[in-house]
């Protein structure tokens, strides 16, 4: 295990040396700025609170970050197969597990970078446009938490949901070696999730509570201890436990498939 971080450095190079990545970053930075400026142009700078704007923009950005990270996760394994570079990558003095782990970590670092950028950009632009952000500001929507406390919890819980979807995309990528399929399935999962959740929550069967989709939006637990489903009261701890189960399952499949696979392509 001479220097595992060099592997992560390699994966980072393969992410950030692509034009695509910088276009994604441009969108993540540009979109909140455009929205804020648009709102000011439409209804003036006194119409909304800066925290409210930050929250709305963060919601939109998180959908984009999830999509972008799924794209990166899908390509990090499947791309090597498509390019044929997997043959040169796996004949180095590293186990396949180490190589897969470096890919997984670099993907999560990508998501983390984008989340941090979103936090900073949405905060700064709204501060600039809608005036200073009062740390103690308490809105009805924030359930008695201070705005900054709410925002930090929101980001943390959103990020956990993102990790699960990205882990799923990563599994698809390593199982099917096709980035298109992995991206497609993961993103439809993301969007169908809320519809399926709505359908399932109507039944009163207990097993419904173990379905992945019921737990992907953890932010509903902020200020609401029993979650969003009236006939299925659950706790944050329970949701986290279910997600942890899926997390382990997805990773187990990725690792098993990747380690055993014959590279015949």
């Amino acid at each position, binding site marked *: 295990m001479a220097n595992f971080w060099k592997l992560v450095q390699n994966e980072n190079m393969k992410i950030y040396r692509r*034009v695509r990545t910088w276009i994604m970053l441009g969108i993540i930075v540009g979109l909140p700025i455009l929205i804020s400026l648009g709102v000011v142009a439409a209804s003036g700078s006194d119409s909304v609170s800066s925290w409210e704007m930050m929250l709305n923009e963060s919601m939109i950005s998180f959908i984009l970050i999830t999509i972008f990270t799924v794209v990166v996760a899908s390509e990090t394994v499947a791309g090597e197969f498509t*390019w*044929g*570079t997997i*043959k040169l990558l*796996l*004949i180095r*003095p590293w*186990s396949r597990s180490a190589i897969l782990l470096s890919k997984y970590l670099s993907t999560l670092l990508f998501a983390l970078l984008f989340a941090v950028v979103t936090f900073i950009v949405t905060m700064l632009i709204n501060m600039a446009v809608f005036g200073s952000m009062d740390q103690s500001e308490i809105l009805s929507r924030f359930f008695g938490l201070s705005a900054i406390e709410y925002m930090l919890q929101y980001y943390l819980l959103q990020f956990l949901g993102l990790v699960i979807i990205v882990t799923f995309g990563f599994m698809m990528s390593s199982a099917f070696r096709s980035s298109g399929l992995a991206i497609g399935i993961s993103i439809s999962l993301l969007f169908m999730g809320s519809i399926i959740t709505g359908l399932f929550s109507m039944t009163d069967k207990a097993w419904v509570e173990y379905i992945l989709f019921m737990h992907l939006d953890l932010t509903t637990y902020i200020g609401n201890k029993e979650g969003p489903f009236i006939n299925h009261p659950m706790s944050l701890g329970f949701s986290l436990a279910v997600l942890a189960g899926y997390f382990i399952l997805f990773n187990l499949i990725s690792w098993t498939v990747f380690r055993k696979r*014959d590279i015949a392509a």
Partner: protein
Amino acid sequence: MSQAPVVRLQNVTKVIGKRTIIDGVSFEVRPGEVFGFLGPNGSGKTTTIRMIVGLMGMTAGDIHIGEHSVRSDFPKAIVQVGAIVENPEMYKFLTGYQNLMHYARMNPSITKERIQEVVELVGLQGRIHDKVKKYSLGMRQRLGVAQAVMHKPKLLVLDEPTNGLDPAGIRELRDYLRRLAQDEGTAVVVSSHLLSEMELMCDRVAILQNGKIIDVRSIRGQDNDVKTLEEVSFDVDHPDAALGILEGLGNGKIVDGLLNLSSDRAGVAALNRRLVEAGINVYGIRVKTKSLEDQFLEMTGSETIG
């Protein structure tokens, strides 16, 4: 030649589904030896090579590189190996240098100076900071060689290395491989279906068919046995008359106006004398040495693909 083998395959077998792709293949390659793998398409050359470098698992048997097993001690085995498996595919959106950096980071023994040295060795110094997507196939092949020899491997494994190279490129690669084997004592395992190519490149050749080694033979230093019968064709002015004169000698046949028969080296001179003494004009004598290609086709037959 008492050195320990660099790579040793013991009874390597690969079964996919119900089909036995590789069936009990064993061989050894010693330092400084260029070992060729010859076989028709689908005979298992690529599969064997992929098992040596750990890209494919084996069903039974084991492969050792030095004293480390590819099966149970993969990192220590593979660190001694450099390889190009089929075409050298690179990250096209990176420069040549970034591609080399990528593989250099994965191996602690490679310094920046060594990368520079290898770049000069393969003659890419002028273009190394260009994106690989702008490279020609020949340049990509050079970059492939650079990444394979960067860590001074004891074993170099090349799968169909001359695919897509022009004659000059093939020759250059061949000379380089021979030099590497002679000067640095690198063992080289190379697969190809180009027989003439293998004849020029290799010390020993294994002929593979349907997943089995059916023959291993030396190419260099073979004893020139004067008794070997060779195909000889005589270009004469009266083939029919000549055939009559040589009646009973060497199964003569007339093909395309040439008198073909088989004889050994001394026999050719004797036959010629008889023809001349009988007043036949001999315009030419050609001895057809059996090439590796003929021997190969003789052994594997032509109908047995897959």
